């Protein structure tokens, strides 16, 4: 039996989940969902930003090469005896994968049959690292090609340029996969050091979503996992003097694209401490984006009618405890003119104020998009893990959205949208091909 099982329910959405702390230190969420596919995601609070750290019992900080969290993700698939974890999942038919972000490394699978066997494999391979100098070298070749692949992708390059323009210090600047040079410094010893620090179960969460029994999940945790020493990881983000203003106003690069791609970034250093407040601000910014930049906005329609932007102007807000920014991006033959119009539009909107009716429609949109996201076990699992790593419970999302007022959104516009917080990154066509 599970001790201290917490049940959280949201009657509006018609969903609930169970949460408990397994005796090994692992946090577990079980989200029942009657679909054919069940999903599990097992993640550690460890991403590309965690390159300088120590345990509370250590004297000195350790600094490691960039790209190591991602490298470790690749290497964990290798099991003792030269077997690949993919081969183990292949026996159950599960579809397995993994990813590394700025702040997370996650291992996951979806399965229509043999769910519990696959869950055993997942918990087992992630908690049993195995690598040698030889296998590390082999991986350098594969990841080298992964890095090259991203170098050919305009969207990846645009994002990297934008992060460097927004931030001076914040480690979101670092490429998740590192560079060909930085990964060349990685060896088995550093990998074990990082593994032993960050893959402590107290630093990890398991989320399971599907037609799954919570007691059975607990039994599998009992069977596979070994209790972890409680530890405290101290990370040095080295961003104390990150300015409120953007690092630079423009970043231009040239690539073989047909038309310039631009991304206007709005930097926000005013990140609420309280997780619920953070979530509220994130959803409120989404509502604001919908009001200001969606296809029903005057900004979009004016630029679109004059063919200044592509039909797919997109806006998105990233708000976590580590960083917060808003991005507006599309393609345009004249990004500088779009930028100018953007600045004028924001100033003008501030002056005349946000419209009540537009606010209600946009809030409805965000409310509906949130409910729509509860139709897939993969999407639910991913959203829970992202939210829980930011200390927020996904099932509170609809209440938080409902609590947002026009005044609250207006205040984000007033405080957050100022010219010193704006920057723009552009990927231009090659000069000799224009």
């Amino acid at each position, binding site marked *: 039996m599970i001790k201290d099982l917490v049940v959280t329910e949201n009657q509006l959405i018609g969903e609930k989940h169970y949460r408990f702390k397994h005796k090994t230190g692992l946090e577990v969420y079980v989200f029942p969902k009657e679909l054919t596919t069940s999903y599990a995601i097992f993640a550690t609070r460890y991403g590309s930003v965690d390159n300088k750290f120590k345990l509370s019992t250590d004297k000195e900080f350790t600094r490691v090469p960039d790209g190591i969290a991602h490298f470790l993700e690749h290497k964990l698939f290798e099991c003792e005896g030269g077997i*690949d974890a*993919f081969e183990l999942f292949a026996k159950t038919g599960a579809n397995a994968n993994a990813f590394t972000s700025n702040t997370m490394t996650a291992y996951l699978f979806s399965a229509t049959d043999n769910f519990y066997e696959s869950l055993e494999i997942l918990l087992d391979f992630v908690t049993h690292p195995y690598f040698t100098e030889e296998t590390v070298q082999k991986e350098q070749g594969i990841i080298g090609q992964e890095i090259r692949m991203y170098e050919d992708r305009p969207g990846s390059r645009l994002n990297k340029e934008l992060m460097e323009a927004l931030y001076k210090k914040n480690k979101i600047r670092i490429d998740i996969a590192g560079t060909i040079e930085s990964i060349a410094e990685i060896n088995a010893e550093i990998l074990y050091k990082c593994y032993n620090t960050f893959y402590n179960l107290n630093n990890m969460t398991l989320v399971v979503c599907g037609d799954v029994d919570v007691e059975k999940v607990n039994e599998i945790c009992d069977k596979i996992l070994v209790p972890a020493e409680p530890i405290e990881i101290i990370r040095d983000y080295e961003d104390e003097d990150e300015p409120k203003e953007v690092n630079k106003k423009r970043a231009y690069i040239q690539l*073989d694209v047909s038309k310039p791609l631009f991304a206007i970034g709005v930097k926000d250093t005013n990140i609420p401490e309280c997780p619920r407040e953070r979530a509220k601000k994130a959803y409120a910014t989404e509502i604001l984006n919908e009001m200001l930049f969606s296809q029903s906005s005057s900004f979009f329609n004016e630029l679109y009618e004059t063919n200044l932007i592509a039909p797919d102007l997109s806006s998105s807000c990233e708000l976590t405890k580590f960083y917060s920014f808003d991005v507006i991006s599309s393609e345009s033959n004249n990004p500088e003119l779009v930028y100018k119009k953007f600045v004028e539009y924001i100033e003008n909107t501030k002056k005349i104020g946000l419209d009540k009716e537009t606010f209600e429609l946009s809030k409805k949109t965000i409310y509906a998009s949130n409910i729509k996201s509860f139709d897939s076990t993969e999407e639910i699992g991913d959203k829970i893990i992202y939210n829980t790593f930011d200390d927020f419970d996904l099932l509170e999302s609809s209440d938080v959205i409902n609590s947002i007022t026009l005044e609250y959104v207006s205040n984000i516009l007033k405080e957050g949208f100022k010219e010193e917080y704006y920057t723009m990154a552009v990927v231009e066509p090659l000069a000799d091909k224009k």
Partner: protein
Amino acid sequence: MIDCSYEIAKGVRLNYIKTTKFKTNYISFNFIAPLSSKTAHYNAMLPLILTRASRKYPTQMEISKRLQYLYSADVGASNNSFGEYHIFGLKANMLNNRFANDIDINQETMNLICDLIFDPYLENGVFSKAYVKGEKQNLIDCIEAEINNKSSYATKRMLNEMCKDEVFNVSKLGEVQDVKRITSKSLYGAYKRAIEKYPIVVYVVGDCDIDAFANKLKECFSKIDRSPIEIPLAEIKERADSVKQIVDCERVKQGKLVLGFRTAYKYTENTYHLLQLFNEVYGGSPTSKLFMNVREKMSLCYTCRSAVSQRMGVMMVSSGIEFDKKEIAEKAIIDQLEQIQKGNISKEEFDSAKKSIINGYKSIYDSASAMANWVFYRSLCDSNTTPLAECEKIEATTVEQIQELANRITLDTVYFLKGENTDD
């Protein structure tokens, strides 16, 4: 999988897949045209112009506001090619009525779709000049932007070379010079042709008042004089004559290698499951021969995967490699095919591939669009099979069947996109 089906008009069918497990409903409205360089640019333009404005909602802004009002209903243009078919139209995804207490989201979204398709915004009896001009530019931008993604660009270039004299070579977006020649009047002519002559299939997945939608569609079509065309079937080349080697140079950091094969597979034989199982063993998963050998053992690449087409029987292998590794990668990819041709498939490999395919088939039931697409594309191949029925066929497949299939595969084209100013 279809719970009920309605004959709406001549050559117009409405199919309903009823399920209560989703919080959303899904609709796809599909025109089925022959894929042809004479009409591809027009058919690519139609979904764009129809979703741009209608008589009732004459601007993009009014359509968007209406969609917001309908609880963020998602109504968008669709455009796809499938063998000799050009399939285009609209698709929609909307929240189920039970989450709204003020409006009937389903009915209102269906009405909006009918408005967009049957009651377009016209000026002097044809599409608006300004909108046609704008959408032409958007389509041209879209065609020109194909160069941005180098991997898919390489795939497309390979297919162009491989299927030079075949209908599959026609782009579903059309060609820039043809788009430029479109006028408001000629586009309106294309619209009339689509609505009067092309076969039409509508899918609805979810939980809604389907009779009401059927009646609404019947009413819309009652004003149209339908005379549906027969779409000519294309000949499919079973074997390659000889291997074509094509090299392009662009400013890329990584070489993109794409191999095109003929598989001799015929959709009329209802053996797509064999082709998919072969593909899974060869390069369709992280335990496939290509992944385990070309990537994991030889460390040549990050991606190396194969894919097969349901209609044309073409197989493609794509990989991103260093410029100087082309020969060695090409050989490694062919070596792995020869392993299957010799029957070198372990029981474990084979069982894994089967389970993986079955997992994929079963998960189709978890997505409304996947269910609709399954039924639709299978029906275009004259099959009404279900994912569960295909699972049984996969279970019963033998290594010998896969080996036999592999032995009919021939290499047609090797395409390599490499960086400029590189030697060799």
